[in-house]
Protein backbone atom coordinates (compact mmCIF):
# COMPACT_ATOMS: atom_id res chain seq x y z
CA UNK A 1 0.00 0.00 0.00
CA UNK A 2 1.36 3.40 -0.92
CA UNK A 3 1.73 6.18 1.62
CA UNK A 4 -1.05 8.07 -0.18
CA UNK A 5 -3.51 5.28 0.59
CA UNK A 6 -2.10 4.51 4.02
CA UNK A 7 -2.49 8.06 5.34
CA UNK A 8 -6.31 8.24 5.14
CA UNK A 9 -6.52 4.76 6.65
CA UNK A 10 -4.38 5.55 9.68
CA UNK A 11 -6.11 8.93 10.14
CA UNK A 12 -9.41 7.04 10.18
CA UNK A 13 -8.07 4.63 12.81
CA UNK A 14 -6.79 7.58 14.84
CA UNK A 15 -10.18 9.29 14.58
CA UNK A 16 -11.87 6.09 15.79
CA UNK A 17 -9.51 5.84 18.77
CA UNK A 18 -10.03 9.46 19.72
CA UNK A 19 -13.77 9.27 19.18
CA UNK A 20 -14.00 6.20 21.41
CA UNK A 21 -12.01 7.94 24.14
CA UNK A 22 -14.31 10.99 23.98
CA UNK A 23 -17.35 8.70 24.09
CA UNK A 24 -16.08 6.92 27.20
CA UNK A 25 -15.64 10.42 28.62
CA UNK A 26 -13.34 9.57 31.50
CA UNK A 27 -10.26 11.72 31.90
CA UNK A 28 -8.21 8.73 33.09
CA UNK A 29 -8.51 7.25 29.60
CA UNK A 30 -6.81 10.36 28.26
CA UNK A 31 -4.15 10.38 30.97
CA UNK A 32 -3.26 6.76 30.28
CA UNK A 33 -3.73 7.13 26.53
CA UNK A 34 -1.29 10.03 26.40
CA UNK A 35 1.47 7.90 27.88
CA UNK A 36 0.84 5.02 25.49
CA UNK A 37 0.79 7.39 22.51
CA UNK A 38 3.95 9.10 23.70
CA UNK A 39 5.61 5.70 23.79
CA UNK A 40 4.40 4.90 20.28
CA UNK A 41 6.25 8.03 19.13
CA UNK A 42 9.37 7.29 21.20
CA UNK A 43 9.52 3.64 20.18
CA UNK A 44 8.98 4.48 16.50
CA UNK A 45 11.60 7.23 16.65
CA UNK A 46 14.05 4.92 18.42
CA UNK A 47 13.44 2.25 15.82
CA UNK A 48 14.33 4.56 12.93
CA UNK A 49 17.88 4.71 14.30
CA UNK A 50 18.11 1.51 16.38
CA UNK A 51 16.02 -0.86 14.31
CA UNK A 52 16.67 0.33 10.77
CA UNK A 53 20.35 1.35 10.95
CA UNK A 54 21.30 -0.81 13.95
CA UNK A 55 22.66 1.99 16.13
CA UNK A 56 21.38 1.33 19.67
CA UNK A 57 20.56 4.63 21.33
CA UNK A 58 20.38 4.87 25.12
CA UNK A 59 19.90 8.63 24.97
CA UNK A 60 16.12 8.81 24.55
CA UNK A 61 15.75 10.78 27.82
CA UNK A 62 18.14 13.45 26.54
CA UNK A 63 16.19 14.06 23.34
CA UNK A 64 12.83 13.89 25.12
CA UNK A 65 13.98 16.26 27.86
CA UNK A 66 15.41 18.77 25.40
CA UNK A 67 11.93 19.07 23.93
CA UNK A 68 10.35 19.19 27.37
CA UNK A 69 12.73 21.79 28.80
CA UNK A 70 12.46 23.94 25.69
CA UNK A 71 8.75 24.11 26.51
CA UNK A 72 9.48 24.97 30.15
CA UNK A 73 11.83 27.76 29.12
CA UNK A 74 9.37 29.13 26.59
CA UNK A 75 6.53 28.88 29.10
CA UNK A 76 8.46 31.31 31.29
CA UNK A 77 9.23 33.64 28.40
CA UNK A 78 6.30 33.55 25.98
CA UNK A 79 3.67 30.84 26.33
CA UNK A 80 3.08 29.38 22.87
CA UNK A 81 0.52 26.91 21.56
CA UNK A 82 1.52 23.25 21.95
CA UNK A 83 1.98 22.47 18.23
CA UNK A 84 4.46 25.33 17.95
CA UNK A 85 6.30 24.11 21.06
CA UNK A 86 6.55 20.68 19.46
CA UNK A 87 8.04 22.18 16.35
CA UNK A 88 10.64 24.06 18.39
CA UNK A 89 11.42 21.04 20.56
CA UNK A 90 11.72 18.93 17.43
CA UNK A 91 14.16 21.33 15.78
CA UNK A 92 16.33 21.57 18.92
CA UNK A 93 16.44 17.81 19.45
CA UNK A 94 17.01 17.27 15.75
CA UNK A 95 20.04 19.57 15.87
CA UNK A 96 21.36 17.73 18.93
CA UNK A 97 20.72 14.45 17.08
CA UNK A 98 22.70 15.72 14.11
CA UNK A 99 25.56 16.80 16.38
CA UNK A 100 25.54 13.50 18.24
CA UNK A 101 25.57 11.63 14.96
CA UNK A 102 28.46 13.69 13.68
CA UNK A 103 30.56 13.27 16.82
CA UNK A 104 29.88 9.57 17.25
CA UNK A 105 29.85 8.49 13.63
CA UNK A 106 33.06 6.53 14.02
CA UNK A 107 31.72 4.61 17.00
CA UNK A 108 30.05 1.30 16.44
CA UNK A 109 28.12 -1.13 18.59
CA UNK A 110 28.42 -0.74 22.32
CA UNK A 111 30.66 2.33 21.97
CA UNK A 112 27.93 4.31 20.24
CA UNK A 113 25.45 3.24 22.92
CA UNK A 114 27.78 4.38 25.71
CA UNK A 115 28.22 7.74 23.98
CA UNK A 116 24.45 8.24 23.86
CA UNK A 117 24.18 7.29 27.52
CA UNK A 118 26.82 9.92 28.22
CA UNK A 119 24.82 12.45 26.24
CA UNK A 120 21.90 11.84 28.56
CA UNK A 121 24.08 12.49 31.60
CA UNK A 122 25.59 15.63 30.08
CA UNK A 123 22.23 17.16 29.19
CA UNK A 124 20.80 16.25 32.59
CA UNK A 125 23.73 17.92 34.35
CA UNK A 126 23.28 21.06 32.25
CA UNK A 127 19.55 21.25 32.99
CA UNK A 128 20.05 20.53 36.70
CA UNK A 129 22.35 23.54 36.87
CA UNK A 130 20.15 25.80 34.78
CA UNK A 131 18.26 27.87 37.31
CA UNK A 132 15.90 29.50 34.83
CA UNK A 133 14.06 26.22 34.20
CA UNK A 134 14.00 25.38 37.90
CA UNK A 135 17.32 23.56 38.24
CA UNK A 136 17.12 20.56 40.49
CA UNK A 137 14.00 21.97 42.18
CA UNK A 138 11.99 21.47 39.02
CA UNK A 139 9.46 23.72 37.37
CA UNK A 140 5.69 24.12 37.67
CA UNK A 141 3.50 24.62 34.64
CA UNK A 142 -0.04 25.83 35.12
CA UNK A 143 -2.17 23.96 32.66
CA UNK A 144 -5.23 25.74 31.19
CA UNK A 145 -8.51 24.26 32.40
CA UNK A 146 -10.15 23.65 29.05
CA UNK A 147 -8.86 22.50 25.72
CA UNK A 148 -8.61 24.96 22.82
CA UNK A 149 -10.46 24.13 19.59
CA UNK A 150 -12.08 20.86 20.71
CA UNK A 151 -13.44 21.78 24.16
CA UNK A 152 -13.44 19.37 27.09
CA UNK A 153 -10.50 18.87 29.44
CA UNK A 154 -7.06 20.12 28.50
CA UNK A 155 -5.77 16.57 28.71
CA UNK A 156 -8.06 15.67 25.79
CA UNK A 157 -6.19 18.24 23.73
CA UNK A 158 -2.74 16.97 24.77
CA UNK A 159 -3.84 13.47 23.91
CA UNK A 160 -5.09 14.56 20.49
CA UNK A 161 -1.82 16.35 19.72
CA UNK A 162 0.18 13.29 20.73
CA UNK A 163 -2.12 11.11 18.64
CA UNK A 164 -1.39 13.22 15.58
CA UNK A 165 2.34 13.09 16.28
CA UNK A 166 2.09 9.31 16.59
CA UNK A 167 0.32 9.17 13.22
CA UNK A 168 3.04 11.35 11.70
CA UNK A 169 5.88 9.22 13.04
CA UNK A 170 4.22 5.99 11.91
CA UNK A 171 3.69 7.40 8.43
CA UNK A 172 7.34 8.55 8.30
CA UNK A 173 8.69 5.20 9.53
CA UNK A 174 6.54 3.28 7.09
CA UNK A 175 7.52 5.52 4.18
CA UNK A 176 11.22 5.05 4.99
CA UNK A 177 10.82 1.31 5.14
CA UNK A 178 9.37 0.95 1.67
CA UNK A 179 11.76 3.39 0.01
CA UNK A 180 15.32 3.60 -1.20
CA UNK A 181 16.20 5.07 2.19
CA UNK A 182 14.98 1.92 3.93
CA UNK A 183 17.35 -0.22 1.88
CA UNK A 184 20.18 2.22 2.60
CA UNK A 185 19.52 2.06 6.35
CA UNK A 186 19.40 -1.75 6.23
CA UNK A 187 22.79 -1.93 4.52
CA UNK A 188 24.29 0.24 7.25
CA UNK A 189 22.91 -2.17 9.83
CA UNK A 190 24.26 -5.19 7.97
CA UNK A 191 27.70 -4.08 6.80
CA UNK A 192 28.89 -0.50 6.46
CA UNK A 193 31.95 -1.22 4.33
CA UNK A 194 29.90 -3.25 1.88
CA UNK A 195 27.28 -0.49 1.88
CA UNK A 196 29.91 2.09 0.88
CA UNK A 197 31.17 -0.25 -1.83
CA UNK A 198 27.62 -0.44 -3.14
CA UNK A 199 27.41 3.33 -3.46
CA UNK A 200 25.49 4.03 -0.25
CA UNK A 201 26.54 7.35 1.34
CA UNK A 202 26.62 5.85 4.84
CA UNK A 203 27.62 9.01 6.71
CA UNK A 204 24.83 11.10 5.22
CA UNK A 205 22.26 8.37 5.91
CA UNK A 206 23.42 7.92 9.49
CA UNK A 207 23.14 11.66 10.12
CA UNK A 208 19.68 11.63 8.61
CA UNK A 209 18.66 8.80 10.94
CA UNK A 210 20.07 10.43 14.10
CA UNK A 211 18.48 13.77 13.20
CA UNK A 212 15.06 12.35 12.38
CA UNK A 213 15.02 10.06 15.40
CA UNK A 214 16.13 12.86 17.73
CA UNK A 215 13.64 15.35 16.28
CA UNK A 216 10.67 13.01 16.77
CA UNK A 217 11.74 12.34 20.37
CA UNK A 218 12.05 16.07 21.00
CA UNK A 219 8.57 16.64 19.57
CA UNK A 220 7.22 13.96 21.87
CA UNK A 221 8.84 15.71 24.82
CA UNK A 222 7.50 19.20 24.13
CA UNK A 223 3.99 18.69 25.61
CA UNK A 224 5.37 16.71 28.58
CA UNK A 225 5.55 19.66 31.04
CA UNK A 226 1.89 20.42 30.32
CA UNK A 227 1.01 16.79 30.95
CA UNK A 228 2.87 16.36 34.24
CA UNK A 229 2.50 20.06 35.31
CA UNK A 230 5.64 19.61 37.42
CA UNK A 231 8.88 18.67 35.71
CA UNK A 232 12.17 18.04 37.48
CA UNK A 233 15.38 16.57 36.04
CA UNK A 234 14.93 13.25 37.85
CA UNK A 235 11.62 12.57 36.13
CA UNK A 236 12.40 14.28 32.83
CA UNK A 237 15.58 12.25 32.38
CA UNK A 238 14.17 9.08 33.89
CA UNK A 239 15.85 5.88 32.81
CA UNK A 240 12.35 4.55 32.23
CA UNK A 241 12.22 6.40 28.91
CA UNK A 242 15.48 4.85 27.73
CA UNK A 243 14.50 1.35 28.82
CA UNK A 244 10.97 1.55 27.44
CA UNK A 245 11.90 3.03 24.09
CA UNK A 246 14.35 0.17 23.58
CA UNK A 247 12.19 -2.59 25.06
CA UNK A 248 9.08 -1.69 23.06
CA UNK A 249 10.58 -2.07 19.56
CA UNK A 250 12.42 -5.21 20.69
CA UNK A 251 9.23 -6.79 21.96
CA UNK A 252 7.18 -5.73 18.96
CA UNK A 253 9.92 -6.39 16.42
CA UNK A 254 12.45 -3.95 14.99
CA UNK A 255 12.18 -5.07 11.38
CA UNK A 256 8.87 -3.38 10.69
CA UNK A 257 7.10 -0.11 11.51
CA UNK A 258 4.32 -2.05 13.17
CA UNK A 259 6.69 -3.61 15.73
CA UNK A 260 7.26 -0.48 17.84
CA UNK A 261 3.51 0.23 17.80
CA UNK A 262 2.67 -3.27 19.05
CA UNK A 263 5.39 -3.05 21.70
CA UNK A 264 4.31 0.40 22.85
CA UNK A 265 0.62 -0.48 22.99
CA UNK A 266 1.18 -3.78 24.81
CA UNK A 267 3.90 -2.67 27.20
CA UNK A 268 2.48 0.83 27.70
CA UNK A 269 -0.98 -0.51 28.50
CA UNK A 270 0.34 -3.18 30.85
CA UNK A 271 2.41 -0.56 32.66
CA UNK A 272 -0.58 1.75 33.04
CA UNK A 273 -2.71 -1.11 34.37
CA UNK A 274 -0.01 -2.26 36.77
CA UNK A 275 0.51 1.30 38.01
CA UNK A 276 -3.12 1.63 39.11
CA UNK A 277 -3.74 -1.94 40.22
CA UNK A 278 -0.51 -3.29 41.75
CA UNK A 279 2.12 -0.62 42.26
CA UNK A 280 3.76 2.15 40.30
CA UNK A 281 7.17 0.79 41.27
CA UNK A 282 6.48 -2.58 39.63
CA UNK A 283 6.54 -0.89 36.21
CA UNK A 284 10.11 -1.56 35.22
CA UNK A 285 10.07 -5.00 36.79
CA UNK A 286 7.26 -5.91 34.40
CA UNK A 287 9.19 -4.49 31.45
CA UNK A 288 12.24 -6.49 32.48
CA UNK A 289 10.34 -9.74 32.81
CA UNK A 290 8.50 -9.34 29.51
CA UNK A 291 11.76 -8.42 27.79
CA UNK A 292 13.57 -11.45 29.17
CA UNK A 293 10.69 -13.64 28.08
CA UNK A 294 10.72 -12.22 24.56
CA UNK A 295 14.47 -12.46 24.17
CA UNK A 296 14.18 -16.17 24.90
CA UNK A 297 10.94 -17.03 23.09
CA UNK A 298 10.84 -14.48 20.27
CA UNK A 299 14.20 -12.75 19.74
CA UNK A 300 12.79 -10.96 16.69
CA UNK A 301 9.73 -9.72 18.54
CA UNK A 302 6.10 -10.27 17.72
CA UNK A 303 6.67 -9.37 14.07
CA UNK A 304 9.42 -11.98 13.83
CA UNK A 305 7.20 -14.54 15.52
CA UNK A 306 4.34 -13.96 13.07
CA UNK A 307 6.68 -14.02 10.06
CA UNK A 308 8.11 -17.30 11.36
CA UNK A 309 4.63 -18.86 11.47
CA UNK A 310 3.81 -17.70 7.96
CA UNK A 311 6.85 -19.38 6.43
Amino acid at each position, binding site marked *: MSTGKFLPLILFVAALVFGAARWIDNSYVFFAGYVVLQYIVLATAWNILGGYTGYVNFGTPAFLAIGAYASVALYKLVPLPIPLLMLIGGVLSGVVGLGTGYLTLRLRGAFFSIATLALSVVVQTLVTNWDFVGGSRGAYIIRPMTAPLIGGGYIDYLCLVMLLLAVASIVIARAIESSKLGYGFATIRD*DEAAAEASGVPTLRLKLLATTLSGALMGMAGAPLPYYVTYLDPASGFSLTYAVNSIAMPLIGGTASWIGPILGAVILGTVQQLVTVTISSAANLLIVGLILVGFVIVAPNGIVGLVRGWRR
Partner: protein
Amino acid sequence: MAAVSEAALLEVRALGKRFGGFVALEAIDLEVQPGERVGLIGPNGSGKSTLVNCLCGTLRHELGTVRFEGRNLAGLKAHERTRLGLARSFQLPRPFGSLTVAENVLVPILYAVQARGNRTAATDARCAELLGMVGLADKSRKLPRDLTQIEMRKLELARAMASEPRLLIADEAMAGLSHGEVDDILALLLRMNQAGVTVIMIEHIMRAVLHFSQRLVVLVAGRKIADGAPQEVVRNPEVERAYLGE
Protein backbone atom coordinates in the same frame (compact mmCIF):
# COMPACT_ATOMS: atom_id res chain seq x y z
CA MET B 1 45.01 18.57 -18.38
CA ALA B 2 48.31 16.73 -18.57
CA ALA B 3 48.21 14.08 -21.22
CA VAL B 4 47.05 10.87 -19.59
CA SER B 5 49.36 8.31 -21.09
CA GLU B 6 47.45 6.20 -23.59
CA ALA B 7 44.23 7.18 -21.82
CA ALA B 8 44.72 4.67 -19.00
CA LEU B 9 41.55 3.73 -17.15
CA LEU B 10 43.35 3.53 -13.84
CA GLU B 11 46.59 5.33 -13.19
CA VAL B 12 48.37 4.95 -9.86
CA ARG B 13 51.46 7.09 -9.24
CA ALA B 14 53.89 6.68 -6.35
CA LEU B 15 51.20 5.47 -3.98
CA GLY B 16 52.37 5.01 -0.39
CA LYS B 17 50.53 3.85 2.72
CA ARG B 18 51.80 3.51 6.26
CA PHE B 19 50.22 2.07 9.38
CA GLY B 20 52.17 3.85 12.12
CA GLY B 21 55.81 2.95 11.46
CA PHE B 22 54.95 0.02 9.22
CA VAL B 23 55.22 0.73 5.52
CA ALA B 24 52.41 -1.24 3.94
CA LEU B 25 52.80 0.14 0.44
CA GLU B 26 55.73 2.02 -1.02
CA ALA B 27 55.89 3.93 -4.30
CA ILE B 28 53.42 1.81 -6.20
CA ASP B 29 53.04 2.71 -9.87
CA LEU B 30 50.35 0.96 -11.83
CA GLU B 31 48.48 1.57 -15.04
CA VAL B 32 45.47 -0.36 -16.27
CA GLN B 33 44.15 0.11 -19.79
CA PRO B 34 40.45 -0.05 -20.65
CA GLY B 35 39.31 -3.61 -21.25
CA GLU B 36 42.43 -5.16 -19.77
CA ARG B 37 42.57 -8.22 -17.51
CA VAL B 38 45.24 -7.74 -14.88
CA GLY B 39 46.26 -10.27 -12.27
CA LEU B 40 47.65 -9.00 -8.97
CA ILE B 41 49.56 -11.54 -6.94
CA GLY B 42 51.85 -11.54 -3.94
CA PRO B 43 52.48 -13.50 -0.75
CA ASN B 44 50.19 -12.97 2.26
CA GLY B 45 50.78 -9.60 3.85
CA SER B 46 52.36 -8.13 0.73
CA GLY B 47 49.84 -5.30 0.61
CA LYS B 48 47.38 -6.48 -2.05
CA SER B 49 44.27 -5.85 0.00
CA THR B 50 45.70 -2.59 1.32
CA LEU B 51 46.20 -1.48 -2.27
CA VAL B 52 42.60 -2.39 -3.11
CA ASN B 53 41.37 -0.50 -0.06
CA CYS B 54 43.37 2.57 -1.08
CA LEU B 55 42.07 2.41 -4.65
CA CYS B 56 38.48 2.02 -3.50
CA GLY B 57 38.62 4.71 -0.84
CA THR B 58 38.15 2.43 2.15
CA LEU B 59 41.60 3.51 3.35
CA ARG B 60 43.26 6.86 2.87
CA HIS B 61 46.78 6.80 1.48
CA GLU B 62 49.29 9.46 2.49
CA LEU B 63 51.36 9.57 -0.66
CA GLY B 64 50.80 9.42 -4.36
CA THR B 65 47.80 9.86 -6.62
CA VAL B 66 45.14 7.60 -8.03
CA ARG B 67 43.47 8.65 -11.26
CA PHE B 68 40.41 6.95 -12.67
CA GLU B 69 39.45 7.88 -16.23
CA GLY B 70 41.81 10.80 -15.87
CA ARG B 71 40.13 12.07 -12.73
CA ASN B 72 42.08 12.43 -9.50
CA LEU B 73 40.27 10.42 -6.81
CA ALA B 74 41.87 12.23 -3.85
CA GLY B 75 39.29 12.99 -1.17
CA LEU B 76 36.53 10.93 -2.78
CA LYS B 77 34.80 8.53 -0.41
CA ALA B 78 34.27 4.87 -1.20
CA HIS B 79 30.65 5.32 -2.28
CA GLU B 80 31.59 8.18 -4.62
CA ARG B 81 34.24 6.00 -6.29
CA THR B 82 31.67 3.23 -6.73
CA ARG B 83 29.38 5.71 -8.45
CA LEU B 84 32.20 6.70 -10.80
CA GLY B 85 32.45 3.09 -11.93
CA LEU B 86 35.11 1.58 -9.68
CA ALA B 87 33.61 -1.51 -8.07
CA ARG B 88 35.06 -4.19 -5.85
CA SER B 89 34.13 -7.52 -4.42
CA PHE B 90 35.28 -8.45 -0.95
CA GLN B 91 37.76 -11.17 -0.09
CA LEU B 92 35.31 -12.70 2.37
CA PRO B 93 31.78 -12.30 1.03
CA ARG B 94 30.00 -9.50 2.85
CA PRO B 95 26.36 -9.76 1.83
CA PHE B 96 23.64 -7.67 3.46
CA GLY B 97 22.37 -10.39 5.76
CA SER B 98 18.87 -9.07 6.39
CA LEU B 99 18.10 -8.42 2.71
CA THR B 100 17.13 -11.05 0.17
CA VAL B 101 19.54 -12.02 -2.60
CA ALA B 102 17.63 -9.84 -5.07
CA GLU B 103 17.61 -6.89 -2.67
CA ASN B 104 21.37 -7.26 -2.19
CA VAL B 105 21.77 -6.61 -5.90
CA LEU B 106 19.12 -3.89 -5.84
CA VAL B 107 21.08 -1.64 -3.44
CA PRO B 108 23.84 -0.64 -5.89
CA ILE B 109 21.21 -0.07 -8.58
CA LEU B 110 19.33 2.32 -6.31
CA TYR B 111 22.41 4.06 -4.95
CA ALA B 112 25.10 3.88 -7.63
CA VAL B 113 23.25 3.69 -10.93
CA GLN B 114 19.98 5.57 -10.49
CA ALA B 115 20.36 9.18 -9.47
CA ARG B 116 17.02 9.02 -7.67
CA GLY B 117 13.92 6.93 -7.41
CA ASN B 118 12.72 3.84 -5.62
CA ARG B 119 12.38 0.21 -6.51
CA THR B 120 10.39 -0.22 -9.72
CA ALA B 121 9.54 -2.98 -12.16
CA ALA B 122 12.58 -1.89 -14.17
CA THR B 123 14.98 -2.26 -11.23
CA ASP B 124 13.47 -5.65 -10.39
CA ALA B 125 14.01 -6.76 -13.98
CA ARG B 126 17.62 -5.59 -13.82
CA CYS B 127 18.13 -7.55 -10.56
CA ALA B 128 16.74 -10.67 -12.20
CA GLU B 129 19.03 -10.14 -15.19
CA LEU B 130 22.11 -9.78 -12.96
CA LEU B 131 21.20 -12.82 -10.88
CA GLY B 132 20.54 -14.77 -14.06
CA MET B 133 24.00 -13.86 -15.29
CA VAL B 134 25.66 -15.42 -12.25
CA GLY B 135 23.22 -18.32 -12.06
CA LEU B 136 21.34 -17.28 -8.92
CA ALA B 137 18.00 -16.52 -10.57
CA ASP B 138 16.12 -19.17 -8.61
CA LYS B 139 17.59 -17.95 -5.28
CA SER B 140 16.44 -14.35 -5.58
CA ARG B 141 14.01 -14.52 -2.66
CA LYS B 142 16.38 -16.37 -0.33
CA LEU B 143 18.45 -14.77 2.37
CA PRO B 144 22.25 -14.80 1.98
CA ARG B 145 22.59 -17.20 4.92
CA ASP B 146 20.80 -19.86 2.86
CA LEU B 147 23.46 -19.71 0.14
CA THR B 148 26.45 -21.99 -0.28
CA GLN B 149 29.98 -20.58 -0.29
CA ILE B 150 30.22 -20.41 -4.06
CA GLU B 151 26.76 -18.89 -4.38
CA MET B 152 27.87 -16.26 -1.90
CA ARG B 153 30.88 -15.46 -4.13
CA LYS B 154 28.57 -15.19 -7.11
CA LEU B 155 26.27 -12.86 -5.21
CA GLU B 156 29.31 -10.77 -4.28
CA LEU B 157 30.23 -10.46 -7.97
CA ALA B 158 26.65 -9.80 -9.04
CA ARG B 159 26.40 -7.00 -6.48
CA ALA B 160 29.66 -5.49 -7.71
CA MET B 161 28.40 -5.71 -11.29
CA ALA B 162 25.08 -4.13 -10.32
CA SER B 163 26.80 -0.76 -9.95
CA GLU B 164 27.66 -0.96 -13.67
CA PRO B 165 31.40 -0.55 -13.13
CA ARG B 166 34.05 0.22 -15.73
CA LEU B 167 36.65 -1.39 -13.50
CA LEU B 168 36.01 -4.38 -11.25
CA ILE B 169 38.51 -5.36 -8.59
CA ALA B 170 37.86 -8.97 -7.63
CA ASP B 171 39.62 -9.57 -4.32
CA GLU B 172 40.24 -13.31 -4.01
CA ALA B 173 36.86 -14.23 -5.43
CA MET B 174 37.89 -17.89 -5.62
CA ALA B 175 39.71 -18.57 -2.37
CA GLY B 176 38.54 -21.79 -0.77
CA LEU B 177 36.53 -22.99 -3.75
CA SER B 178 36.83 -26.40 -5.40
CA HIS B 179 38.47 -26.95 -8.80
CA GLY B 180 35.18 -26.92 -10.69
CA GLU B 181 33.89 -23.91 -8.77
CA VAL B 182 37.04 -21.95 -9.59
CA ASP B 183 36.36 -22.60 -13.27
CA ASP B 184 32.81 -21.37 -12.76
CA ILE B 185 33.93 -18.05 -11.31
CA LEU B 186 36.70 -17.74 -13.91
CA ALA B 187 34.19 -18.13 -16.72
CA LEU B 188 32.02 -15.52 -15.04
CA LEU B 189 34.86 -13.00 -14.78
CA LEU B 190 35.86 -13.63 -18.41
CA ARG B 191 32.27 -13.01 -19.51
CA MET B 192 32.19 -9.75 -17.57
CA ASN B 193 35.45 -8.72 -19.23
CA GLN B 194 34.02 -9.54 -22.66
CA ALA B 195 31.08 -7.32 -21.81
CA GLY B 196 33.54 -4.45 -21.57
CA VAL B 197 34.47 -4.40 -17.89
CA THR B 198 38.14 -4.03 -17.04
CA VAL B 199 39.09 -6.53 -14.34
CA ILE B 200 41.86 -6.59 -11.77
CA MET B 201 41.98 -10.05 -10.25
CA ILE B 202 43.68 -10.62 -6.95
CA GLU B 203 44.26 -14.28 -6.45
CA HIS B 204 46.45 -16.95 -4.90
CA ILE B 205 45.31 -19.75 -7.20
CA MET B 206 48.05 -19.55 -9.85
CA ARG B 207 46.19 -21.74 -12.32
CA ALA B 208 43.32 -19.25 -12.32
CA VAL B 209 45.51 -16.15 -12.44
CA LEU B 210 47.63 -17.43 -15.32
CA HIS B 211 44.60 -18.51 -17.28
CA PHE B 212 42.82 -15.19 -16.75
CA SER B 213 45.44 -12.46 -16.82
CA GLN B 214 46.86 -10.68 -19.83
CA ARG B 215 49.31 -9.01 -17.52
CA LEU B 216 50.60 -9.93 -14.10
CA VAL B 217 51.62 -7.55 -11.34
CA VAL B 218 53.53 -8.84 -8.32
CA LEU B 219 53.62 -7.18 -4.91
CA VAL B 220 56.13 -8.24 -2.29
CA ALA B 221 56.41 -6.50 1.08
CA GLY B 222 54.57 -3.42 -0.14
CA ARG B 223 56.64 -2.94 -3.31
CA LYS B 224 55.85 -3.78 -6.88
CA ILE B 225 58.63 -6.12 -8.03
CA ALA B 226 57.30 -7.22 -11.39
CA ASP B 227 54.78 -6.15 -14.01
CA GLY B 228 54.49 -7.80 -17.40
CA ALA B 229 53.40 -10.79 -19.45
CA PRO B 230 52.34 -13.58 -17.04
CA GLN B 231 54.70 -16.28 -18.36
CA GLU B 232 57.69 -13.97 -18.11
CA VAL B 233 56.76 -12.66 -14.70
CA VAL B 234 56.49 -16.11 -13.12
CA ARG B 235 60.00 -16.94 -14.41
CA ASN B 236 61.37 -13.72 -12.93
CA PRO B 237 64.03 -14.77 -10.36
CA GLU B 238 62.88 -12.13 -7.87
CA VAL B 239 59.32 -13.44 -8.01
CA GLU B 240 60.52 -17.02 -7.59
CA ARG B 241 62.56 -15.98 -4.60
CA ALA B 242 59.57 -14.25 -2.99
CA TYR B 243 57.37 -17.29 -3.40
CA LEU B 244 59.82 -20.16 -2.95
CA GLY B 245 62.53 -18.61 -0.81
CA GLU B 246 66.25 -18.48 -1.57
